């Protein structure tokens, strides 16, 4: 065996062309580091993306890569996985690419539970087309296309993924590279569709959209780092927690660090109610959960497809062309 690969081995020879300061850089190096750490092979790894600043990602990975068309990366990836289930496939998309034009492809890929990992770079704006509001932009967003403020309610990427039946759902922020690597590694380990939202700063068209979540000082108060089986605690001194009140979460100031009665995180429960309601926790009312919201196991599409092929071969024998040609009502002319 050759020497283990390092972060550098996953860098392609192409110049990275994002704006200086763009959050995409952090995601790129987190991915490169994570893949090196996981010890995957370059030739077995495929990055598929749509169109957007984020979707330039594959060019910078020294693996196989497909920069497809706007919104359709999940469909392209579906074909890749059906043709060769052995490949490690990553789908890179943006909030516009994945939730606007590509929403249908995203949802349907997720409900099939194809075994690929989707990373959605959420900068709450259309970067590449120079700053129109996106499906995750807050209502009232003033942009080039909405000088008087946008009118639509934003979509919540995690809710969409959960409503689609996602078997793995997670979130991380570009400013916390170490945590991002962990999440990426968890996604990679999942069998089935993994959906990861990354809060990403577009420092040209939507700078500081996630400042509350990325700024080092504010972060502890505004992010809830989820850990399976652990009570939900957050705050600078781990001084607050989440309790359940009927069907609603409540923030509770901890009494001397006493965590009794706090909600415990369970990423593996099959019913998505908990994950759904975590996904809906929004700043500033609540801290926003990061980490793995849901990770349950279910058979993947391509495995089941191959099982059907296998079963057919077992039942009918490996298809024979002459049998096929001669099937049905045949007759002979002399």
């Amino acid at each position, binding site marked *: 065996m050759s020497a283990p690969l390092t972060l550098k081995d996953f860098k392609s020879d192409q110049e990275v062309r994002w704006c200086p300061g763009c959050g995409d850089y952090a995601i790129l190096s987190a991915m490169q580091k994570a893949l090196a750490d996981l010890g995957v092979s370059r030739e077995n790894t495929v990055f598929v993306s749509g169109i957007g600043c984020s979707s330039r990602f594959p060019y910078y990975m020294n693996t196989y890569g497909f920069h*497809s068309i706007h919104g359709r990366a*999940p*469909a392209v990836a579906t074909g890749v996985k059906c043709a060769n289930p052995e490949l490690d496939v990553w789908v890179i998309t943006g909030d516009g690419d994945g939730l606007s034009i590509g929403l249908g492809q995203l949802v349907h890929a997720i409900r099939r539970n194809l075994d690929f990992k989707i990373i959605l770079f959420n900068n709450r704006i259309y970067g590449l087309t120079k700053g129109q509001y996106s499906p995750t932009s807050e209502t009232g967003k003033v942009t080039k296309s909405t000088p008087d403020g946008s009118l639509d309610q934003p979509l919540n990427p995690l809710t969409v993924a959960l409503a689609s039946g996602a078997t793995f759902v997670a979130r991380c922020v570009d400013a916390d590279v170490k945590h991002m690597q962990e999440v990426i590694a968890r996604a990679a380990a999942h069998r089935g569709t993994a959906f990861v939202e990354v809060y990403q700063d577009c420092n040209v068209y939507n700078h500081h959209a996630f400042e509350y979540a990325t700024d080092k000082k504010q972060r502890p108060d505004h992010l809830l780092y989820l850990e399976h089986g652990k009570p939900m605690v957050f705050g600078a001194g781990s001084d607050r927690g989440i309790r359940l009140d009927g069907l609603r979460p409540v923030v509770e100031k901890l009494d001397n660090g006493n965590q009794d009665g706090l909600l415990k995180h369970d990423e593996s429960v099959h019913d998505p109610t908990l994950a759904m309601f975590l996904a809906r926790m929004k700043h500033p009312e609540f801290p926003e959960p990061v980490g793995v919201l849901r990770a349950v196991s279910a058979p993947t599409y391509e495995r089941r497809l191959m099982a059907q092929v296998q079963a057919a071969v077992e039942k009918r024998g490996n298809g024979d062309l002459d049998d096929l040609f001669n099937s049905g009502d*045949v007759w*002979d002319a002399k």
Partner: protein
Amino acid sequence: MKNPDTLEEAPAIDDSRIRLVDRVAIRFAGDSGDGMQLAGTQFTNTSAIFGNDVSTLPDFPAEIRAPAGTLAGVSGFQIQISSDDIFTPGDRIDALIAMNPAALKANLADLAGGGILIVNSDEFTPANLKRAGYAENPLESDLLADYRVHQIPITTHTVEAVKEAGLGSKESARCRNFYALGLVFWLYDRPLETTQNWIRRKFGKREDIARANELALHAGYNFGETAEMFALRYRVEPAKLPPGRYRNLTGNQALAIGLVAATRLAKKTLFYGSYPITPASDILHVLAGYKHFDVRTFQAEDEIAAVCSTIGAAYAGAIGVTASSGPGIALKQEAIGLAVMTELPIIVIDVQRGGPSTGLPTKTEQADLWQAIVGRNGECPVAVIAPMSPADCFEAAIEAVRIATRFMLPVMILSDGYIANSAEPWRVVKAADLAPIEIRHATNGGDFKPYQRDDHGSRPWAIPGTPGLEHRVGGLEKAAITGNVSYDPDNHQRMINQRADKIDRIAHEVPPQAVFGDTTGDLLIVTWGGTYGAARTATQRLQAQGASVSHAHLRWMNPFPANLGEVLGSFKHVLVCELNMGQLQTLIRGRYALDAEGLHKVKGRPFMVSEIVDAAERVLKAPSKSTGTHKSNGGVA
């Protein structure tokens, strides 16, 4: 009534009543619920197995079940059988079986004068007459004076005949299509065996239904034999088909089988990503049953996902195929451009139907030619092949895969609703006789260049999983050789030329344009796709009349065969016949700056032979090449 079990052999034939004829065209017509497609298919199979050449034209409504008894609900199935080669289901029909007043009304105009008309008189009730829009009962008027009318209470007879099977009255009446079929079998002197076997296979688990259908079939046959209602019977002798084994295939079946064959010939996996749409869905249905050939079918959420999954599969090394009809192909165009730019081999099947927009979903048309060849953004060439008949779909599928993988580009197969649903005998080939499709994937060889071209002008097909070939593709313009993104002006021109050049090279890989008849003369009839049959028959007829007429049928629509210009230039007149308003005509004129004339029809139906004969005769009478009577591109005359 005799026990059908004792009737396994056809009753002795009173030969004096049987007249031999060369060909005969029959149409079964009834309500959508009357099982006319089934009756037609059975008659077709029996005749094919009997050895006739056959050609069929099914015609059914766009609604699943339009209201019973209405014109909208009429379903028809036309078959021509012949002791010679035939290419069409026939212009006019010799016999019409009309199961209700609406079927009579919708189909009578196509029945030749003096033709046989069999009606199910049970259904000519005042209510049904009204539903069909008949003010008075045609059976009681002189509307039918020109025909040999046979009024038979088919429903009553059927219910009576199947009694012993013990079905309910509704189910009993449902067997009436087999009664009608049996009668027609008698009339045209066909054996019952094939249909009997089919009934056994199909209803094996429901003995009562199987039995009832058999009883009805025989009852119909026997009625013909005993009723003395018919002065004559007809027999069409077996055709002198080239020796070999045959089976009937519809175009959609032939495409599916051809794709499976091509994939095997290429030692590949077939990935078929598609979204249902009339009249293409059956390809998906057939392929979904071929999983033991490692066929992987994927019903996508829409046409865009279907074609994109196909592109992904091709990228990963499979034979990627997608199919749709006009509206769905429109949706796929953006992604087809991606396949052009990434130079990946995919097959896109367009089973054309009446347009524009949702149009006439169950009717045939050839109006997607422009869409196929030039209907994308930018200079975005794909290769296009149009099978000429149902059976030819088999060969076309194999050729498409061969060309797509050799030249690394999308190939579009332009079928149509007529080819897709109608059937003709296909001469069964031996797998071993088919030429393998050689595919060489790139392998690790040091400095890999994803856009370095080989001697076909093709870039290497380097599939994920191969160490050392890691590379990135995408829809932005690619740098020659390296495949990196490039905005360089000269590179863009170079790449556009190279993509076009691949298309041009195909012209030298495909057979030169053949001509049926003399290679020079007064008139060349030019056709493509499903209009082949009518034009070939028309040409034969014209030639027999001594006219200087030849026929050139195009299969490759892009590129045109290398010698096409020369072929066209050798005739005084060129007449392009197509089921659109002049799409090939315009392309030919545009390419060869030659005043080709056109015969155009968009009525959701194939050409009749007589329409082409008439048009040809008009052109031949014209003093010289007439000047273009073209109108705008929206409406070329």
